[in-house]
């Protein structure tokens, strides 16, 4: 009993700390950097959430999904529709952005977006019972495109005109806070009993089955969880910038995969690194103007040839190891 309650207290304390930290970070960032950099930081945070969640399916479980943008689209449109159509009736919100009263409907919208996206993830995960490898990959791609075209044909959310009139609720604090929570959740999941089952499926599905791991159920769960976080990221996206289905083409899915692979498959910190680098790189290359995308794609090819396992491989960056390495470098301290 005592253990459980202390866990709860610690969890709550951590949650409050994350929220406070994010708030302070947002305030500081708004003071220090210009709006252009601020915007890149927000997009970077969104990409980190997307890459980490996709890593659960592609890196940890060893499946191959190339339809992540579809889940993001579901989350984006569901949460935006909730904010625009349902929230004004449910909550008499007249308060301005940034107050606690305005935060509740936003949290609800994000959660709802994630939830519906998770249901979509369940549907996409189902074919993994029969399909594997590239066939599964192409089905996820197909679902992503079908979702996009379906949304394009719903007039209530703007269709081909794009969805206008969504209040801007997302700021760096929200994105950073949710990114941290996603990281903690996924890290704990991977380290848990269930995480080991997912890793076992990646290493050898038949052997895992033989050891009593219900592989189909786990694969579907991996899809559901990844879709949930992608949906939340989509919700954050739709409350930040102009919403149109063109943001969710299969190129977006590819972009996220590249982040995961570049960082290192199965490495959560690798996904953070990959997402940050690939969001920043096109901006850093802006000096090259018209040639920047050519350089970007060449760098991608060269990186894959030079370091096929990704930047971190399957390792994680951990404080413990950094401290250890620093100690070892100091002469005499090693002994």
């Amino acid at each position, binding site marked *: 009993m005592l253990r459980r309650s202390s866990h709860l207290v610690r969890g709550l304390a951590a949650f409050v700390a994350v929220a406070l930290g994010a708030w302070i970070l947002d305030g500081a960032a708004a003071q220090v950097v210009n709006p252009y950099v601020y915007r890149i930081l927000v997009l970077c945070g969104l990409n980190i959430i997307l890459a980490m969640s996709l890593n659960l399916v*592609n890196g940890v479980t060893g499946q*191959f999904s190339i339809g992540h943008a579809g889940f993001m689209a579901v989350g984006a449109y569901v949460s935006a529709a909730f904010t625009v159509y349902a929230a004004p009736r449910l909550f008499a919100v007249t308060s301005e952005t940034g107050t606690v009263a305005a935060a509740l409907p936003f949290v609800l919208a994000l959660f709802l977006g994630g939830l519906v996206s998770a249901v979509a993830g369940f549907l996409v995960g189902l*074919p993994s019972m*029969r*399909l594997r490898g*590239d*066939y599964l*990959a*192409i*089905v996820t*791609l*197909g*679902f992503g*495109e*079908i979702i996009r*075209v*379906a949304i*394009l*044909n719903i007039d209530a959310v703007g269709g*081909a005109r794009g969805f206008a009139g969504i209040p801007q609720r997302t700021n760096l604090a929200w994105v950073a806070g949710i990114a941290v929570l996603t990281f903690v959740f996924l890290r704990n999941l991977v380290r848990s009993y269930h995480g080991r089952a997912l890793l076992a499926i990646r290493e050898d599905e*038949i052997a895992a089955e033989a050891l009593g791991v219900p592989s189909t159920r786990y694969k579907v769960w991996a899809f559901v969880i990844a879709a949930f976080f992608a949906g939340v990221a989509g919700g954050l996206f739709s409350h930040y910038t102009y919403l149109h289905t063109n943001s969710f083409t*299969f*190129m977006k899915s*590819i972009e996220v*995969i*590249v982040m995961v*692979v*570049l960082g290192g*498959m199965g490495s959560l910190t690798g996904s953070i690194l990959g997402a940050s680098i690939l969001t920043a790189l096109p901006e850093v290359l802006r000096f090259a103007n*018209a*040639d920047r*995308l*050519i350089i*970007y*794609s*060449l760098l*991608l*090819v060269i990186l*894959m*040839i030079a370091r*096929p*396992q990704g930047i971190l491989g399957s390792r994680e960056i951990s404080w413990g190891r950094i401290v250890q390495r620093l100690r070892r470098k100091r002469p005499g301290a090693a002994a």
Partner: protein
Amino acid sequence: MQELLQQLANGIAWGSIYALIALGYTMVYGILRLINFAHGDIYMVGAFAAYYLARLTNAGGANPSPALALAILLGSMLICALLGVAMEYFAYRPVRKSSRLTALITAIGVSLFLENLGIRLFGADPKFFPQLIAPRSISLGGVMVTNHQITVVIVSVLLMVSLSLFIQRTRTGKAMRAVSFNRDAASLMGIPVNRIITITFAIGSALAAAAGVLVGLTNPKIEPLMGIMPGVKAFVAAVLGGIGSVPGAVIGGLLMGVSEYLVVGYLSSTYRDAIAFVILILVLLVKPAGLFGRNIAEKV
């Protein structure tokens, strides 16, 4: 009925183009287990190569000549075959021993490279493909087809027949089948695997180039990003038919083209991009390895 036949005719012409692109996907996949994402962009390069060859030779417009059109087609196929070989040599060969995902990301990188290089070299705005053959409409029992569409179908069929003769009847074709069946065993039997892979890329890219030139005939607006969607759909067609299977790619491509035109004709053109995937998912749920794919039992 009339309208149905009309849509079928349009669909078959368009489907032949998907089939030509799908053949390259399926051949490369059969041998390397690599989804060559840059294949759609080779198709784009094929269209542009023909565009510039036509301008160079002053073909089209006032003096359309079938002989010159044929020369341009072959020239563009040659250029793309070289491009495909170079792409394999510089980008795919170094990562061949790495994981398949690494190879896939490399392919995506190559694809982005070709697209952006295309924008830089050719400009982002669409170009109008010259009319290499004077357009004419022909009525076949009430169904209107253009001579361009007929050309597309005839050229595609010729290419497909010669490809399957090549694969089934020649020594090189036999070697290709052997490498696709088991690369290591083929190598032990003295088959020069590297050369076979090079040849596969050359043929696949040449077929994509042919598709690009034929598309220039029927839909004369070409631009550097034109390869993305047809590339994805041709890949879907290859999977639909059973990836690695040559007849599967042809059937898959035709099925895809026809269903797209039926959707445009009877439903709404906004659903055009989704129908391919709906069919694909339905087929894969019933036949997980595609229409003509072999179900490989898993070894423990």
